[in-house]
């Protein structure tokens, strides 16, 4: 397998470019949270600071509450892995406005870049994973529209699919391991929820 070349920050910036009131974004704890915030903090972003595993179900609940908006979940491989069976729940419900983008760096980035389960097997005693393929899992759960993105040349299509293609859309994006600046949104969950609801519904 070729080494990942995509950088997560410019990629996420591209995915969120020109985001308007029709785009509702949920990001998983850690790097994905800092990524969407680096692209520009906005009330219709819901960046999680904890609750690992919450992103996909949260996107699903939101997608049915707001069927005319686009709901985009951006998260890491390990966050998805923690409630990976939620992909089967998504497949059962077929939300046509939900897209899931998994930034897979094959590491547990927040705890010191230990190999995650998506790392290759037989990669030495301290850096081996299982070679888990999350796109194949998504497919196996019943999500028909899945794909894996590795190259810069595929990014324009990725952005289009995530922003506009009929859901549920699942994209696995292999990204580099990088040491990046923490770009943090507000931390108070009640505040994040209230500003989201005020921007979306006009009241908390």
């Amino acid at each position, binding site marked *: 397998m070729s080494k990942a070349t995509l950088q997560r920050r410019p990629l996420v910036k591209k995915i969120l470019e020109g985001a308007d009131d029709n785009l*509702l974004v*949920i990001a998983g704890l850690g790097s994905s949270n800092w990524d969407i915030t680096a692209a520009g903090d906005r009330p219709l972003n*819901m960046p999680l*600071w*904890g*609750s*690992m*595993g*919450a*992103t*996909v*179900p*949260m*996107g*699903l*609940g*939101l*997608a*049915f*509450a*707001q069927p005319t*908006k686009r709901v985009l979940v951006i998260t890491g491989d390990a966050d998805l892995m923690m*409630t990976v*069976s*939620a992909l*089967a*729940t998504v497949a*059962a*419900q077929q939300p046509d406005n939900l897209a899931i983008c998994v930034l897979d760096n094959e590491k547990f980035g927040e705890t010191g870049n230990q190999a995650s389960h998506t790392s290759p097997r037989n990669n030495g005693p301290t850096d081996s994973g299982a070679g888990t393929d999350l796109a194949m899992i998504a497919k196996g759960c019943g999500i028909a529209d899945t794909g894996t993105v590795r190259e810069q040349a595929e990014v324009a299509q990725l952005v289009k699919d995530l922003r506009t293609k009929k859901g549920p859309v699942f994209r696995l994006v292999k990204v580099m391991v990088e040491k990046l600046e923490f770009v943090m949104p507000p931390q108070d*969950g*009640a505040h*994040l*929820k209230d500003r*989201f*609801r005020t921007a*979306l*519904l006009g009241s908390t």
Partner: protein
Amino acid sequence: MNDWRDDIFQVLQDHDIKQVYHVPDAGHSKVIEACQKSNAIRTMALTTEEEGIPLAAGAWLGGQRSVLLMQSSGVGNTINLMGMTKTLRFPFLTLITMRGELGEFNSWQYPMGQGTQKVLEAMGVLVTSVDKAEDVKTTVDHAARSAFNGGQAVAVLLRQKLIGIKSFGKK
């Protein structure tokens, strides 16, 4: 008098519940079927009860009310994500059919059944319970008011005495 299961479905409608999450459950089966048949309610079968907490948070972010139907054994699967009810401070309602109470024949049901109320309370969830059919409607209605008007996380324990003790043919 109505069947208490019909009363629960009525209260869910009265409170404008739009999303209902569940795992297969004998005690809740009649309510689940009524929700599945309703055009006003999106009913979702979960792979694990844990999904129900962020689903409810997402629904609320988008302006909809929801309820999580589960068994006492499922409560243990939700605990870390149950913390979201505190950090996000959103209304949350769950109705829990109890196992592992006095009279239970299956020893595997006791640990979580006996721990259910304690762990919910440890996570800041308000817990009420009902063991008489005639009290179900009022209890669930009050719980829904505390959740959706009072902004609380609330659990109603439907006691084994109410549901009937599963015997698997044993006397």
